[in-house]
């Protein structure tokens, strides 16, 4: 097996993986939380969040440009010294690890609800973890290529789902257009910029990109594609489950797919959609697990991330069982990880960028 740090990934693979990373949360309780934040304007919240995240991503790119050849972990260390650098890296790690843990729980709960109501949750979680562990062990190349192969499938599924739901949609329900008011909408959108926090992934693997100089374009393209998925799907779900009903639908994507009716012969086809969602979830979990392990590898300058994976798998399994139920898990996800965690991962690079600029300025003055 080739050394994992020698594995290079192409532009298409990087974009496909980032889009998966950003948009798979659409399949769980994301639309419900958007409805909480934006009421009838649930679909506007992701637009604001993604715009904020784009600014955050540009800050990260600016930081990376200060320290060419390194990734975000190395740039953080160089900008603020080893101690603060490691604290910053731990912050990034915490975001990805928490995302992984919560997604394991949420996806497993979705599978339990939709497919296997009588199978113990721990079995479903264990199978998920084993599958993603295998993929993460194979390395970034394998996961991103799997994402590239799966991308047409997921795009096709989303288009099909949205088109087939049109007969059930009532777009009058999206009014008033700004829901709780523009100010509140903007506030909610900005503080939930963490919903696009996974774009940080590109800055962690920047050294393994075939066309490293195109990282900014890759990030922006991924954010644009993922934002389109999020906005269109949230809009459609809002039209199918109008506010305030949408507050009580735990898995709008799944629930919406159960409504698809194409005559007496083709009905209840949600299982076919869940089939593809499981594959998407596996790709997402493999990516987040891999990224978390890579952050620790780079932070501690370890020769390989692979020995960390079994430990992370056991920790992930344990922590995923901590929330008592799904609402608690989603609360932790959206109210803590995606809010404070999300803000932190964009604010930390901003502070580091300012530090780097100050350092550079003082050097020039000294000369």
């Amino acid at each position, binding site marked *: 097996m080739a050394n994992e740090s020698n594995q290079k990934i192409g532009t298409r693979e990087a974009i496909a993986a980032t889009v998966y990373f950003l948009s798979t949360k659409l399949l769980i309780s994301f639309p419900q939380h958007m409805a909480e934040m934006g009421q009838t304007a649930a679909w506007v919240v992701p637009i604001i969040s993604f715009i904020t995240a784009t600014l955050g991503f540009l800050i990260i790119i600016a930081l990376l440009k200060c320290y060419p050849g390194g990734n975000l972990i190395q740039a953080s260390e160089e900008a603020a010294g080893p101690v603060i650098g490691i604290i910053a890296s731990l912050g990034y790690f915490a975001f990805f690890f928490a995302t992984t843990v919560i997604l394991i729980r949420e996806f497993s709960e979705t599978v339990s609800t939709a*497919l296997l109501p009588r199978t113990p949750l721990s079995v479903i979680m264990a199978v*998920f973890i084993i599958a993603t562990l295998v*993929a993460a062990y194979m390395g970034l190349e394998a996961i991103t*290529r799997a994402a590239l192969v799966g991308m047409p499938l997921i795009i096709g599924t989303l288009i099909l789902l949205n088109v087939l739901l049109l007969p059930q949609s009532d777009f009058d329900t999206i009014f008033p257009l700004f829901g709780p008011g523009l100010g509140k909408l903007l506030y909610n959108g900005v503080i939930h910029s963490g919903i696009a926090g996974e774009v940080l992934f590109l800055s962690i693997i920047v050294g393994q990109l075939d066309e490293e100089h195109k990282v900014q374009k890759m990030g922006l393209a991924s954010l644009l594609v993922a934002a389109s998925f999020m906005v269109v799907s949230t809009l459609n779900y809002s039209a199918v489950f109008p506010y305030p009903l949408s507050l009580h639908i735990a898995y709008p994507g799944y629930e919406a797919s159960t409504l698809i009716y194409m005559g007496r012969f*083709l009905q209840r086809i949600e*299982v076919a959609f*869940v*089939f593809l969602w499981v*594959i998407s979830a596996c*790709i997402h979990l493999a990516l987040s697990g891999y990224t978390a392990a890579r952050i620790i590898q780079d932070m501690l300058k370890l020769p390989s991330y692979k020995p960390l994976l079994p430990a992370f798998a056991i920790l992930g399994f344990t922590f995923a069982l901590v929330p008592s139920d799904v609402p608690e898990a989603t609360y932790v996800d959206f109210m803590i990880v995606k809010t404070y965690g999300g803000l932190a991962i964009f604010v930390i690079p901003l502070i580091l960028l300012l530090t780097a600029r100050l350092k550079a300025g003082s050097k020039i003055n000294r000369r």
Partner: protein
Amino acid sequence: MQLIGMFLQKLISLLSFNPPEDETRSDACAGREPNVQEQKMQKPPQDTRSGRRRIRARRKSAVSQNRVLPRRIEGINLGSKQDSSGEISPPDDSPSTGKTDGCEMKPLTKGLDANLNALKKILHHGTNADVVIREFDIPTIPETRASIIFIDSLASRDTIDFAILQPLMLIANLNDGKTDDRLEMVKRRLLPGNQVTEVDNLRAVTEDVLSGATCLLIEESDIALSIETRSWEHRSIDKPSAEMVVRGPQEAFNETLKSNLALIRRRMRTPDLISEMLKVGTLSRVDCAVLYIEGLTNPELVDEVKRRILETKADHIQDTGILEQFIEEKPYVLAPQTISTERPDRMAAFLAEGYVGIMLDGSPFGLVLPATFWSLLQSAEDYFLRWPFGAFLRAIRTLALILAIFLPAIYLALTNFHPEMIPTDLLLAIAASREKVPFPTAVEVLIMEISIELIREAGVRIPGVIGPTLGIVGALILGQAAVAASIVSPILVVIVAITALGAFAVPNFNMAFAIRLYRFVYVLLAAALGFYGVAIGVFIQLTTYVNLKSFGVPYMSPVAPYTRSSGDALFRYPVWKSEIRPSFLKPQQEERQPPISRGWIEDEGSGKSEPGGAKGKNHGKRK
């Protein structure tokens, strides 16, 4: 923090089972190899490692002693020796030059008797009934003693009688003073055979004799003449049996390497088609031809193929099926990593694209390298038909692949876990048909799948014409009787029959085999976890496939990773749009044909009309 880091590094080194650095370095940097006496005298150190680790260390040590520093090409370690010109030469102990069969690289002497005695010993003359040594005199003045050696069963008697012995024994008094060198005279004036080569050592003489040539030894000459007399009974060129087509050539390879090479050369009349001969098998020493097109095929790919063949240390390789197992990248993955073909036209087409071919004497199947997943779903006929038909066939075959792998698993998942997906009428029909069946659906599916495998295997093993008949009769009677006895439900017979048809529609035999095994895995996953299990299986298979490489080329190319190609993967585009060769092969010439390949169509505006009167359009032009 540094302490934590050090602790974690130590922990990782313990977990990753890497041998200590000193251990590997002592093998790799030994400087010189100890001679045999030293080896005998040195007592082997007590090895306390476990069996697998010991074997691994021994392999590593063997590799480090035999190879020069590896050269990296696209993630491949090239370990064979290279001379100053960059040519790969076989390692010292490789089958083609080594001392592995007791036949050393000793030079011939000037004494005929000494040479004959040595050869008699090597060839076990006297015990070996078909080794013939014929001594005679060439009527020169003075007479010259000579001898020919050949294998009776491999050489042509007529050629030996009339093209070697007759001129040598009957044409006398040739000492006309033109040359004093008897060997030169014999070679230039007395041997009418079309291929005569000089050999100067016992090993070469032995190898030539064993491959059907006749060697002529002359008194006072330390060079022997190897005369082409190969002739043995062989099967004639027949129709393909595993890769049949309706439209297209109806010729298949047979067991004779020369005929096979001729079949390829007939289709590829370029001097750049190279067939390099190597020997495989330390005992059998079979001829193996590596085929490629000079100036087109990626030389690194050719080097890698040759390196793997040369470094294969097996005693007896009698078929490409065995060779394939020695040179493939990941033997534990079910997916075939080489393309085997019995069609010379297909081999020629692959060579024209930049692939490398391997033909082995005695094997009616050639190997094409590297393999990609998509190429295993393609058939020669796809290209012989017009593109819409070819594309349709590809779509049908893709459907067949999906059905062959997933249909029983989907049936199992639907009936056991998600019956709500089945339309009510169909669900009632299934329930009614299963009413009297005592087994759970999973057992029912396994019974039927195993029965189908039994029928298939029995059909192949039963001799003569009974085989196919038994297959049909067995399947019909068994299916009917199993349904009548309420062992299986009728709908399952339909499911299993469609699955079997799907597997037969897959054009590559190895791929079809892999599919049969994958099917069982998916049946078990579906029985345990329904669609969730199947989805997890698909994910793991997908990541395994995208991670797989065949001779350094990603298995899912050109889709993942995306590389430039003519789009000839799952779809089949018009031949005039296939302008480039697959770039994942890194061919030296990427352009296959110009953007306007249909040159007879003029550009718009040239004003020249076609014979039919219609104005030329811009078909075939790539915008």
